[in-house]
């Protein structure tokens, strides 16, 4: 009897808490999409913000382009360096101590709060190196932020490659470069792309690193990496600070959320499709 009520309580606890968890998820996404969905149309996507305070009318085109530019710079810089580092650690690094040092540095960066990276980037890139508030400065900070994210996933994927395949390749006298290029990368490519895409979604949603390094309240769609840009996440933050949320604010959140969901969804589908083969 006593035992039975104990189990009932256990059941009740787990059912109620998962109901709460999923209710919160559906509420957040549903609320934003329902309230903002009506605002999103061609004009909203292709016009610039207008009105006073800014964003009481018009669209969010420059912010969308800015977000894509920041994410693009971050992903290109971070993926090039992170994939190289992962290949080095897995295939070239022969010293245990060196491996540990590199891993420790990567791990400490992963544990770095994004706002501290922003502070670092603001001082170094914006002020000391003279990049100014620009897509480049903001993109570099975001790139540093997602570097460990990509490196850890790619390195894990590379370790999952069958040792036998590598050894056979080496035994046949195939060079390490050719083995990596034709066997390893080909095998791991879908997962590497998927990791980079997930990291891109992460970078696109981040606000703290670009507050002072790249994002501005108003700008045209960026023309080069040296120009400052708007970003959806920062634009949303600015709009919320202006006062009572309007349809325009919900519309901005809807576009931001949908973009990130699309990126993450594509990355996830990519992984599922590959496994399904």
């Amino acid at each position, binding site marked *: 009897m006593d035992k039975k009520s104990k*189990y009932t309580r256990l059941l009740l606890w787990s059912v109620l808490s998962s109901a709460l968890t999923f209710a919160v998820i559906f509420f957040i996404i549903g609320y934003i999409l329902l309230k903002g969905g009506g605002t999103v149309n061609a004009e909203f996507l292709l016009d610039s913000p207008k009105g006073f305070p800014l964003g009481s009318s018009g669209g969010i085109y420059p912010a969308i382009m800015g977000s894509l530019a920041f994410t693009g710079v971050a992903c290109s810089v971070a993926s090039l360096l992170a994939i190289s*580092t992962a290949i080095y650690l897995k295939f070239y690094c022969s010293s245990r101590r060196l491996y540990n040092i590199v891993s420790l540095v*990567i791990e400490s960066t992963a544990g770095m709060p*994004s706002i501290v990276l922003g502070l670092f980037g603001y001082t170094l890139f914006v002020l000391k190196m003279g990049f100014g508030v620009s897509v480049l400065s903001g993109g570099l900070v975001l790139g540093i932020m997602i570097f460990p994210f990509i490196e850890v996933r790619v390195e894990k994927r590379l370790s999952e490659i069958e040792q036998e395949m590598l050894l056979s390749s080496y035994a046949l006298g195939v060079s390490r470069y050719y083995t990596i290029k034709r066997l390893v990368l080909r095998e791991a490519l879908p997962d590497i792309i998927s990791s980079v895409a997930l990291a891109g979604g992460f970078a696109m949603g981040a606000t703290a690193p670009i507050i002072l390094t790249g994002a501005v309240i108003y700008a045209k769609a960026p023309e080069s990496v040296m120009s400052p840009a708007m970003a959806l*996440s920062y634009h949303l933050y600015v709009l919320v600070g202006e006062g009572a949320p309007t349809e325009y604010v919900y519309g901005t959140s809807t576009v931001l959320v949908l973009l990130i969901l699309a990126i*993450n969804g594509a990355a996830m589908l990519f992984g599922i499709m590959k496994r399904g083969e």
Partner: protein
Amino acid sequence: MKSDKAFELIIKMFTLVSVTILGFIIFFIGAESIPAFRHSGVAGFFANERWHPIGAEPVLSILPMVLATVYVSFLAVAIALPIGVGTAVFLSCIAGESARRVLKPFIDLMAGLPSVVFGFMGLIVVVGYFERHFSMSSGESALAGGIVLAIMILPYIVSTCDTTMAGIMKSYKISSDSLGVSKWHMVRYLVLPAAKRSVLAGAVLALARGMGETMAVMMVIGNSPLLPRLLGKCETIPALIALEMGGAPVGSLHYHALFAAGLILIIMRFAVSMAVWRIKRGADL
């Protein structure tokens, strides 16, 4: 053979560049903090509740922000932990394989939402609710920050716990079933005790994430450098840096003080990560 050497060289060069940049960040933050510590002394940084970085006689004590950071993130973990573990029990032990496959992606989806969206929702829903129902002049408070942060770290707790619990379920299911042990007995006396360490590790990991969170927390806690109270305004270290770094001229004491604040936050997170590492090492034994 030539391309072989060139490839190796390029890979080594990029790795060197990466490690140099990342190592330099840590060094840079440390170096830029020194003048602030020299001004107040390390103990002086935690001496009182006064944060006046500008003026004739600047006082740099970051104690209220340190306490607020710890307070808000502990509050968030305290709220999220029972709900997260309960959800993980449901996903790994109660929901069938197909329900789990449908529900799990929603947890990942929630983890991917940008923090500024959580802050926005927190502001209109949580803060708005406090203002309407608690007759508070402003609903922005440590509690609001704790609730919003709890929602943000919930998916991390669910993910870590669910992975472990599903693993335990899988490895003991057959023996447990053949012995005629009921599912509930198994959950209560096998899965939960065996997952204890991983739950703890998940909680500490979530705590570390919470301490570093900027936007969502900053948008709902009111940002006043006061000692944290449940229904009072406070300011976390990330919020302090985000709000003040634009106004601090390079090289000023204020500027160095913000770097010192960042360094303290990194050390706090590092201490928490060490705890995770120790818990995990214990779990493997």
